[in-house]
């Protein structure tokens, strides 16, 4: 347990660095490896800005909560057989709770500066974040069906024969929609989008902004590790040791998520809300029904 936690804490910073590098690829400004570190260092040396009558406590804590949720979500993912930081029999539910709390934290981040653009971003995010969460619940329950358990360890073990991504082809793409939403990315970035000049982080500067980006990247890592465990067989794989497989799969999901965020355009929020409830949610029902039939055969 302690070994797994230490391994996660050690692996997280390099993975966050990797996430920042993925974000830089294709922007045409070079310095892919060192750029994120340098920019982060420069931000750390800038001052935090105060706003008029902000909610200081929540403003100070929001990035920390976001980072904490990423870490808790990451802690239910098994690194190798028998090595997991949080061996909870309801790990999938704990992951769901982290998703729900992410919506709360992003809302607080936009609420606390007492400024119009962050406030609008916060409210829009709640509208999209809540139904996006339903999606992930259905596809994760689909992953739990063959495992007959809500424990992520069991979900991975149940994929020894065949990975869930093959058995449930709709699962991973739908789960990725949630990944984009909780990491504030591309088509689901209703909190920090360009049409709000940075939205919930429009009023943040210096270390507060750097930490928010750090937490956002760690949430990407947590989401990718979870997707790898639920759909790509986690640490399972031939020849290489388990943790290496998990690392490779996590990196692959990270890259795919970043690419998806760049490829799909962001709709106005009302349109996205209808799309979520009327197209994506029924699709997740279909996915679950297909899994149900497949498991019983």
């Amino acid at each position, binding site marked *: *347990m302690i070994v797994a*936690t230490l391994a996660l*804490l050690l692996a997280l910073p390099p993975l966050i660095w990797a996430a920042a590098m993925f974000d830089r690829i294709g922007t045409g400004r070079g310095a892919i490896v060192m750029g994120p570190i340098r920019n982060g260092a420069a931000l*750390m040396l*800038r*001052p*935090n*800005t*105060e706003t*008029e*009558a902000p909610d200081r406590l929540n403003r*100070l*804590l929001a*990035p*920390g*909560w976001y*980072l*904490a949720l*990423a*870490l*808790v979500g990451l802690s239910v993912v098994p690194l190798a057989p028998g090595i997991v*930081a*949080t*061996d*909870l029999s*309801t790990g*999938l*539910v704990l992951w769901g709770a982290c998703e729900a709390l992410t919506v709360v934290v992003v809302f607080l981040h936009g609420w606390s*500066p*007492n*400024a119009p*653009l962050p*406030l609008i971003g916060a*409210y829009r995010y709640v*509208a999209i974040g*809540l*139904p996006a969460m*339903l999606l992930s*619940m259905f596809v994760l*329950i689909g992953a*739990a*069906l*063959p495992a*007959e*358990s*809500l424990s992520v360890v069991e979900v991975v073990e149940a994929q020894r024969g065949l990975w869930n991504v093959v058995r449930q082809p709709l699962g991973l793409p739908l789960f990725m929609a949630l990944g984009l939403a909780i990491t504030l990315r591309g088509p689901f970035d209703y909190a920090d989008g360009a049409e709000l*000049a940075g939205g919930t982080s429009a009023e943040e500067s210096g*270390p507060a902004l750097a930490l928010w980006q750090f*937490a956002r990247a760690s949430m990407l890592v947590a989401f990718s590790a979870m997707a790898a465990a639920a759909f790509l067989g986690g640490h399972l794989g031939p020849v290489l040791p388990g943790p290496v497989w998990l690392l490779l799969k996590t990196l692959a999901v990270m890259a795919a998520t970043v690419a998806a965020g760049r490829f799909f355009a962001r709709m106005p929020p*009302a349109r996205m*809300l*209808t799309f979520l*409830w*009327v197209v994506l949610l*029924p699709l997740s*029902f279909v996915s679950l*029904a297909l899994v*149900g039939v497949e*498991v*019983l055969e």
Partner: protein
Amino acid sequence: MTQIAMPIVVTLLAVVFAVAMQRIGPQTGATWPQRAPFLGGGQPETHAWQRFHVRYYPMTLLFIAFEMEMMFMYPWAVVYVETGLTALAEMGMFLGILSVGILYGWREGVFRWQ
């Protein structure tokens, strides 16, 4: 105990780390023009905090009802394989009933901005 020890520990670690990092930088007293909310040079008349006109409130109510239902699904998923067809039929019915709710909400336009 051991199940929730690590989540609590990493939560405390993360929060302490984030607060400490925000405290090490230069702490300067902001002037009033600096504090004004960013509106591209424009100025607001009032505080931004307000009785915010949420445009999707019927959706949130529908959502809560749906979320309740999710809580039944988790234990269902665990015993699904053992119970077999009964579980499939039962959940099919349950989801069917709730889908009626979504269809009704869609027809009434609750997934649009009010």
